[in-house]
């Protein structure tokens, strides 16, 4: 059974017991345990169920590569699914539940799928979708639904906080094993800014488990000495629990720091996402052991040999009393020796190599361990845990030679360098035949902005599996990285490592070599997604020859572990099935993040009130305390309407419209874009930007203008005021302010760079308030100051002066059809001016109005609105705005495009007014239907609504829309869709419903 050993683990503190719970059962572990080691110490071998067949699953690995040990962790606001138990540090009160089973982990109905395995082969979903039949609905679909998704989705808001951190470093070293430590130490010595990150809580990687000699000390002592040296360097920062998640262009790296997953009661952010700009990156990310593909290799109790060793040495946990070891290399003998030293039995080491191992094998034999060369596992016995293995010849087809009882199997198929981070940004790989591994091709590294290498792989991640080579490689990577970043120091001695020499491995992709279908269909490649050797072979047989296709067809490597254990074995199997060499098959693409990172870390501080910036005008405070019903307009929050007590929002809009038409309304128009354009070429510049002439606008006057994109489409509109001889002020829509300013600068900086024009976006410098309605002038006259009479300040002119003691620029422009003054005052005085207007306007019945009232007022006047009448496909000609397109100008942006045949097509839908016969309001988005059906069986259309409102002024529904030959069909009645299959009759009318002569605004 799996239990805590009497020999103390390196990482645990038996003086500090910790209580935790698994599936409601209270268990005990120690400080320093991972959840995996603590569960194993409690004989909890079974930790989950696989995705497809619901097979019992136990821990396979001891680190980030673990495919099986995924649990739901925490509850309520700290609940999180799919947490990997091998990288979850134990803390007091930890509560975990297993996932992907029903009704219980021990008894799972879904495991019937394993008996249906014959019907659920690779590509099952694709095949079934092609041929639906009654079986699908009643048999398969329920199972697939059952298996959709591993963990549960959290239901509560995340109770924790998160943050980002940006830093720029000269050298980033990813991986805190001996190679990474050597790299950081050497780079740090040059004075370069160095950041060293390690994904686990402990330094030293595998070396501190296997304890080779470095510089005459044990690896652990060397690590301690080196860490002390690094800590003393001001220019070096070292971080544990920080994973290199992804390497991106130009040395941008994301790292994921888990600050208090191990101490949830501590204060501060839970995770920190590091956004690192590194001049050079050293990936010392180590290597991952490969499983062997033999029948029953997925049973709980079958682990990687290195993991069995880790649990024994680091955590003092023995997985089994009797451990059979299956290997194709010398390294796995270390597991046998470690277990033997811990007082556990190793009944046999099955070495698939005909000639067996070297010095380590001799050591094992010397301890009395039975070693069988050329032997293999034919199959593993057991159900929810291993009970024994049957032994066969590796060279044969699996004829059983003997059966050996055991409760643990430790397997080793060799090692694969962790090349993920090297590969993320284009680093290439090369196949190392001798070591049977893909390793970084150092001649084709990822390159930075200067075309030079930006990543250096080091240590075992670079394919150097021996201590001496690994540590020297780390040292030289650190030195080279610092040098490339511009830092050098006199070289000191290279750290000198040594370990026992090993004999080469023999690649073993199938055990035994000639395994028949019955064995191959029980030999797992991907434990989480249930992909077996037979599935990959079937994919190859069915023509999925590309590794990327085979991956997607079988789902190999597509689980949450992204195939860390399965990829190489899978593509080797594919290579065998296709009978082409492994390097010709190639690998699938390595994509960030290395292991999943939390959504919280990605969001960082951007949640709740900080989710998005909310832009506020100087008057927003008043709106908030006066029952404004807000709507978002870009990132602004604008009042939609001011709702009085007892009113509905609709009532409020009606009241605001009527009051503005009969008394006076007040609008906070501060969000309107205000861009100053100045210079000797400013007039020429604006003539190019607007479709009409702006250069000939007289000083003191205003003119409405349209802006089009190069493709001719209408993109913004607004009133331009000529300020002085070489200065114009361009008003844009609220959403257009930043966009149009950028558009102007784009043309000035990239195309017309020699034109003498400067622009400044003054949108936020001013509070702009529209005083609108027949009594507007009376309000301003009461406040006193400048002359606002028709004679002194006629329609479409502006003037500077004071109103009620405020410095003001007053524009006589109207978007409502009423007498209207738009008054700009410095933003710092905006609120005071608003308050002054309200108190002066009280006796005239002044009421503020919101954006919906604004919309109704403009629609009654037939004024277009960017975003309603335009949608990126509409040109000014469609809107009968030909009068605003200059015929005199040689050119303006969009002119050429508007002359193209489709744009000049007389059949383009054109703007008209629409009036329902029954006075009702046409639904938003309604289409005008035409006779007949199109080839898709849909009703033909001849137009659509662009704006539709209830007009309180006219007491009926009014609308604007684009209709085929619309302006030529005045008075005709057409049918509009209501969205429920019925139609509403509407008459085509002039789009101006109110004050067609425009007399009210010009008084």
């Amino acid at each position, binding site marked *: 059974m799996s239990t805590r050993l009497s020999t103390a683990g390196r990482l645990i503190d038996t003086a500090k017991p910790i209580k935790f719970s698994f599936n409601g059962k209270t268990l005990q572990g120690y400080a320093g345990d991972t959840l995996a080691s603590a569960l194993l110490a409690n004989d909890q071998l079974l930790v989950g169920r696989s995705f497809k067949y619901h097979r019992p699953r136990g821990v396979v690995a001891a680190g980030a590569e673990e495919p099986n040990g995924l649990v739901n962790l925490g509850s309520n606001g700290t609940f999180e699914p799919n947490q990997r138990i091998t990288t979850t540090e134990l803390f007091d009160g930890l509560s975990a539940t297993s996932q992907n089973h029903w009704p219980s982990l021990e008894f799972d109905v879904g495991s019937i799928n394993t008996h249906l395995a014959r019907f659920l082969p690779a590509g099952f979903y694709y095949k079934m979708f092609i041929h639906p039949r009654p079986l699908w609905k009643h048999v398969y679909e329920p199972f697939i639904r059952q298996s959709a998704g591993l963990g549960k989705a959290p239901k509560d808001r995340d109770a924790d*906080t998160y*943050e*980002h*951190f*940006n*830093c*720029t470093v000269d050298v980033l070293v990813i991986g805190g094993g001996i190679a990474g430590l050597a790299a950081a130490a050497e780079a740090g010595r040059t004075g370069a*800014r160095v*950041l060293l990150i390690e994904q686990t809580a402990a330094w030293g990687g595998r070396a501190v488990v296997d304890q080779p000699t470095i510089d005459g000390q044990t690896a652990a002592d060397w690590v301690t000495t080196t860490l002390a040296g690094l800590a003393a360097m001001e220019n070096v*920062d070292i971080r544990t629990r920080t994973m290199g998640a992804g390497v991106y262009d130009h040395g941008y790296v994301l790292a994921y720091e888990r600050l208090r997953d191990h101490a949830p009661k501590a*204060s*501060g*952010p839970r995770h*920190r996402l590091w*956004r690192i*700009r590194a001049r050079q990156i050293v990936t010392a990310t180590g290597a991952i052991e490969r499983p062997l593909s033999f029948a029953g290799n997925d049973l709980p109790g079958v682990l990687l040999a290195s993991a069995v060793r880790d649990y024994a040495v680091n955590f003092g946990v023995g997985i089994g009393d009797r451990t059979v070891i299956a290997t194709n290399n010398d390294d796995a003998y270390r597991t046998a020796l470690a277990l033997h030293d811990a007082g556990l039995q190793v009944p046999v080491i099955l070495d698939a190599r005909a000639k067996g191992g070297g010095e380590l094998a001799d050591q094992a034999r010397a301890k009395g361990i039975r070693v069988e060369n050329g032997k293999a596992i034919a199959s593993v016995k057991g159900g929810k845990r291993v009970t024994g293995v049957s032994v066969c010849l590796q060279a044969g087809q699996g004829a059983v030679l003997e059966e050996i009882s055991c409760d643990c199997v430790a397997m080793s198929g060799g090692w694969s360098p962790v090349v993920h981070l090297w590969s993320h940004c284009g680093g290439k790989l090369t196949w190392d035949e001798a070591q049977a591994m893909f390793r970084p091709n150092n001649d084709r590294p990822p390159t930075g902005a200067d075309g030079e290498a930006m990543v250096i792989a080091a240590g075992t991640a670079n394919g150097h599996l021996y201590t001496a080579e690994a540590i020297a490689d780390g040292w030289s990577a650190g030195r080279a990285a610092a040098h490339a970043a511009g830092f050098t120091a006199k070289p000191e001695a290279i750290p000198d490592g040594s370990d026992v020499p090993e004999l080469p491995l023999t690649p073993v992709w199938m055990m035994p070599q000639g395994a028949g279908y019955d064995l191959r269909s029980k030999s797992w490649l991907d434990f989480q997604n249930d992909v077996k050797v037979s599935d990959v072979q079937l994919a190859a047989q069915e023509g999925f020859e590309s590794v990327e296709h085979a991956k997607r067809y079988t789902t190999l490597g597509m689980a949450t572990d992204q195939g860390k254990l399965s990829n190489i074995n899978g593509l080797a199997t594919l290579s065998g099935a296709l009978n082409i060499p492994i390097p010709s098959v190639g690998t699938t693409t390595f994509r960030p993040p290395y292991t999943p990172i939390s959504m919280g870390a990605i969001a*960082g*501080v*951007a949640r709740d*009130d*900080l989710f*998005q*910036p*909310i*832009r*506020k*005008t*100087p008057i927003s405070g008043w709106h908030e305390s006066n029952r404004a019903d807000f709507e978002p307009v870009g*990132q*602004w929050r604008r009042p939609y309407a001011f709702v009085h007590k007892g009113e509905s929002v609709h009532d409020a809009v009606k009241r605001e419209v009527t009051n503005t038409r009969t008394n006076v309304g007040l609008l906070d128009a501060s969000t309107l874009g205000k861009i*100053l354009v*100045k*210079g*000797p070429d400013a007039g020429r510049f604006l003539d190019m930007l607007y479709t009409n002439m702006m250069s000939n606008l007289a000083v003191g006057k205003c003119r409405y203008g349209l802006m089009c994109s190069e493709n001719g489409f209408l993109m913004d509109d607004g009133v331009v005021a000529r300020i002085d001889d070489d200065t114009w002020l361009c008003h844009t829509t609220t959403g257009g302010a930043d966009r149009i300013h950028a558009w102007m600068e784009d043309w000035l900086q990239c195309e017309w760079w020699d034109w*003498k024009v*400067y*622009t*400044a976006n*003054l*949108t*936020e*410098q*001013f509070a702009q308030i529209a005083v609108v309605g027949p009594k507007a002038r009376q309000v301003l006259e009461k406040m006193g100051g400048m002359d606002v009479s028709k004679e002194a300040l006629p329609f479409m002119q502006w003037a500077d002066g004071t109103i009620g003691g405020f410095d003001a620029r007053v524009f006589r422009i109207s978007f409502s059809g009423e007498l209207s003054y738009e008054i700009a005052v*410095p*933003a*710092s005085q905006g609120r005071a001016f608003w308050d002054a207007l309200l108190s002066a306007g009280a006796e005239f019945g002044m009421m503020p109005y919101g954006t919906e009232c604004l919309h109704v007022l403009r629609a009654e006047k037939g004024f277009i609105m960017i975003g309603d009448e335009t949608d990126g496909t509409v040109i000014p000609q469609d809107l009968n705005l030909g009068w605003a397109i200059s015929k005199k100008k040689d050119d303006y942006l969009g002119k050429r495009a508007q002359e193209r045949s489709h744009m000049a097509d007389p059949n383009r839908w054109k703007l008209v007014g629409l009036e329902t016969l029954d006075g009702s309001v046409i639904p938003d988005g309604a289409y005008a239907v035409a006779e007949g059906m199109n080839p898709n069986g849909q009703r033909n259309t001849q137009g659509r609504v662009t704006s539709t409102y209830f007009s309180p002024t006219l007491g009926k529904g009014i609308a604007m829309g684009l209709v085929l030959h619309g302006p030529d069909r005045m008075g005709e009645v057409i049918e509009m869709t209501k969205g429920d299959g019925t139609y509403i009759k509407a008459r085509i009318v002039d789009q101006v419903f109110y004050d067609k002569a425009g007399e009210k605004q010009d008084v």
Partner: protein
Amino acid sequence: MSEVVNVRDLGSQGMVTLRGDMSSKAFKAACKALSELAIPDRNKITEADGKGIVWMSPDEVLLLLPHADAAAAVAQFAAAMGAEHHLAVNVSDARALIAVEGPFAAEVLAKLTPADVHPAQFGPGDFRRTRLGQVAAAIWCVAPGSYRVICFRSVADYTLNLLSASAEAGPVRHF
């Protein structure tokens, strides 16, 4: 050393955008006359006696001065430039000025800006136009542990809250 970073709105600040040919005699003289300061190098600010000049772009500087003096400064600059192509405009009310001060103030900024604000790289007199969270901002270092942030007026609340939340979350202990 108390481990607290203070974030506060500094209230009104005069700011004038000046655009023109920064190498011209008239431009330099006009800046000097307004502030007694020389035009700073790229990504720098010069400050003295309550006034400052900031390098904003190859053809733009920002003049910092008391709020009440901004309008007069615009007129004075325009007069000094005469017919030479330029733009001078009061932007005092379009912006907000925030102080970030405390032992790990640089790290508070680094949580929000991609700019390298490591004290060894970004010291007194250094200025950057950058982003804080999701908004445009400019930052400069007044003294070690003391920084100023300019953002647009409409997002002053957001920026204050963003900086405060980042300060409350504590130091990173990287710088």
